[in-house]
């Protein structure tokens, strides 16, 4: 298949207009010695052949579509209303560029503005940007903001922070002289006594993940007091669906709220593309990374939207920019915007409520089984950790044979938790599916 439209006649006429003998001659600037030989790739194929070969590959996968999944750990299976896919697959959104020419990009710009507003409403923060790559890189950029703004060197995070997020923060900060302090958990949540001892005048920020990687809900307000008492910034990394019931970062006075926006209408898609959301208190907005859309007027006084606060960005500030980010996750932000509009005020609460009720039903079922006990008594949202009598890696292999996927064995992240696995239940699981899961587990 080829997508270029030129006929031989077109090419001839174009070459004549250029005054060149052949299209190949246009590459004369590339020295002979640097020309590649024939590209060692197979011949092109037709659409029909492509479809067959991709289906062959796809059929080697077993998706959550066919299996009953209880996997979470930073990526969550939620119901996605059909409108989300229908809107984001419209060519006018899908194939548009970053809205540099605002007058020809009002659809994208207004949607970004609405997305920013929805994220602010959900998180209780003042200002949000147009999106980051994912939850982990959004957190890393938040740490960067805190270190630059405070001029301090210590970054404090809990052991219960998503292990991959911890790695990403360290990677991003590897060029900076910062010191990381990991606070152990006590019963699944922040050990506040240790935290209190560690936070000092050189602490740039304290990170709280809520709910944390073990699914536990943190006492964010108490962490806030400890953090702000020493003038450090509080960074909250939150699950957006949980905010349908849980206290918002704005309500516990966080300085920066970030998180993985995938639960907001974005398919699991083996880990990406996802959506990092990023929101701040107004006093930090000039240091915020990423694009921002704002309201303005046109020459006739009519409302319109443009990218604004661009003096922070790389194309203006180059090495002095607040971040190197250029492309964000525009289409994924649109998905979140349509999702939040579609489920709306009631839907976000009901979805969150069903997550709580169903996961608690599952917990009760599992606790009745012999050989399983709860890792923590802390309150949770839609995910909890159980200790198993057997090696969880073995259990999940067996579950797979019964068409069930999950939970997530935690030994691969925490060497001390080899007998633990986390189990996630969202609104997508029926009582019958949970009963089946419990029944298969009961044989272990």
């Amino acid at each position, binding site marked *: 298949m080829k997508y270029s*439209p030129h006929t031989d006649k077109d090419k001839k006429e174009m070459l004549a207009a250029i005054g060149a003998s052949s299209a190949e001659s246009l590459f004369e600037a590339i020295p002979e010695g640097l020309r590649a030989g024939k590209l060692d790739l197979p011949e*092109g194929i037709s659409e029909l052949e492509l479809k067959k070969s991709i289906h062959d590959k796809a059929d080697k*996968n077993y998706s959550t579509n066919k299996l009953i999944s209880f996997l979470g750990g930073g990526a969550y299976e939620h119901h996605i209303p059909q409108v989300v896919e229908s809107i984001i697959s419209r060519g006018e959104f899908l194939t548009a560029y970053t809205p540099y020419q605002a007058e020809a990009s009002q*659809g994208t710009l207004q949607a970004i503005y609405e997305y920013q507003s929805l994220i602010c409403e959900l998180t209780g923060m003042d200002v949000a940007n147009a999106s980051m790559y994912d939850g982990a890189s959004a957190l890393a950029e938040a740490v960067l903001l805190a270190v630059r703004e405070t001029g301090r060197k210590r970054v404090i995070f809990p052991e219960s922070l998503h292990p991959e997020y911890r790695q990403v923060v360290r990677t991003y900060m590897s060029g900076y002289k910062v010191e990381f302090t990991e606070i152990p958990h006590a019963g699944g949540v922040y050990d506040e006594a240790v935290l209190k001892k560690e936070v000092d005048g050189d602490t740039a920020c304290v990170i709280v993940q809520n709910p944390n990687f073990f699914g536990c809900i943190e006492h964010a307000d108490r962490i806030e007091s400890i953090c702000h008492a020493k003038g450090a910034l509080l960074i909250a990394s939150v699950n957006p669906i949980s905010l349908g019931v849980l206290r918002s970062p704005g309500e516990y006075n966080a300085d920066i709220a970030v998180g993985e926006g995938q639960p907001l209408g974005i398919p699991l898609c*083996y880990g990406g593309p996802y959506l990092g959301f990023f929101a701040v208190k107004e006093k930090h907005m000039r240091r915020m990374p990423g694009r921002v859309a704002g309201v303005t007027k046109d020459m006739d006084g009519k409302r319109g939207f443009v990218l604004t606060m661009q003096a922070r960005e790389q194309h203006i500030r180059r090495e002095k920019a607040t971040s190197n980010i250029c*492309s964000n996750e525009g289409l994924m932000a649109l998905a979140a915007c349509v999702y939040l*509009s579609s489920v709306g005020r009631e839907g976000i609460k009901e979805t969150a409520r069903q997550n709580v009720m169903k996961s608690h039903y599952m917990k009760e079922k599992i606790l009745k089984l012999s050989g399983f006990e709860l890792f923590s008594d802390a309150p949770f949202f839609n995910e909890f950790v159980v200790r198993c009598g057997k090696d969880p890696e073995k259990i999940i292999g067996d579950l797979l044979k019964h068409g069930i996927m999950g939970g997530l064995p935690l030994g691969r992240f925490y060497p001390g938790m080899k007998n633990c696995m986390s189990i996630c239940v969202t609104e997508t699981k029926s009582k019958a599916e949970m009963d089946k899961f419990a029944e298969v587990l009961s044989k272990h």
Partner: protein
Amino acid sequence: MLKVEKLIFEIGSAGRKGYSLPKLDVPDADMKELIPEDLLRKSEAALPEVSELDCVRHFTRLSQLNYSVDTNFYPLGSCTMKYNPKINEKMASLPQFADLHPYQPESSVQGMLELLYETEQMLCKICGMDAFTLQPAAGAHGELTGMLIVRAYHTSKGNPRKKVIIPDSAHGTNPASAALCGYEVVAVKSDRNGRIDLDALKAVVDGETAVMMLTNPSTLGLFEKNVRQIADIVHKAGALLYLDGANMNALVGIARPGDMGFDICHVNLHKSFSTPHGGGGPGSGPVGVTAALSDYLPVPRVKIKRNRFILDAESKKSVGRVRAFYGNTGVIIKAYCYMKSLGGDGLKDATIEAVLNANYLKARLKGHYALAVDDEPCMHEFVLTGKDKKDFGVKTLDIAKRLLDYGFYAPTIYFPLIVEEAIMIEPTETESKDTLDSFVETMIKVANEARSEPGLLTSAPHSTPVRRLDEVLAARELNLRWKRPGA
């Protein structure tokens, strides 16, 4: 055409719903019995209250306010706005890809891992590199990954070094990525044709130089003929050479960065490999390296072990993770489909036709607009300057806005920074001669209008959903979100 659309918050009605969930089939309880009250939300989020139809109409109308590749020609320089094949969208959305959880057991995702592995292999062949990571989520993310690799490499030799050399014609992401990695940026001047001045380069390269970041072809659309000499100068100082692969659409199938002496390169799947831009992402910015640097690539890496594909997170030298999970796999699937569809010869033909299109536009426009440089054929893009139009009181911005009136998106403007009133044009290979001809006629018409009726340009656009927008007002009176009345 509909000209103004209300905000989603301005439509709907209290109590209106546009969603459905199954009835709760487990015992309901008082929330406070399960989660202590002090952990529960106090004030509700004021999300919209709209019906499904309200929602569909609102966003459909918004979409109609956009220009897009599906509806308009986008001659945006350095952005490679080629056609985004529909079949690739369909393939990436198959449930056996779209519904895969990133923590599924490897045995249940063999098809996915195989596709990722093959994509890496194809990119290695196209770029002449020995290993690739598909993790970075965008070009700038790839640059950051590249700079982290540079730092890790030099650190392993005992000194991370201090400086990154970047031409003054480079994309703004280059210096920003280097700075994010803690490096000091040293700009090196380009000559009048936008090529690296070798003497100027020699003068700044020393034992503290970690890497030079180079875009080839340059942002002026010219191949860097001296690239081997540049590589020698840089390598002699023990430094590395990095390719910003934003302009790979001029090279695929023709020349390979690895053969030119680059140690690291990123490619933009959303440019050269046809994946849609989505109004600003998601992109994907895979990074390739030579064998000597492969151990520094981010983890996890896709590998084969006992005839099975695995994700290997073990590597002592790795820079670590640059994001959670593996990468923008939904984007990678589309690029894979593109490479498979075109095949080796097709990819090369696409490059040739992209360069043909650019040279055709250049040849037809040069009598009407001044060229930034004109010493030879351009590659996939070229740069005009609007400075002679200033005599009529018309700026490049006005030309750009006037093009919108005629149904064309504007070229990239005011970039590269080394060209005054720059107009950077990249047609890509998927535009037909008819479209290019109609663009040329419009550009000529606009040039004539600049002379005869400059007011038409300075007050443009006239036929877009809104007229020229006041950016200064937006920056002065910041309004970055809707607020509920009374809040």
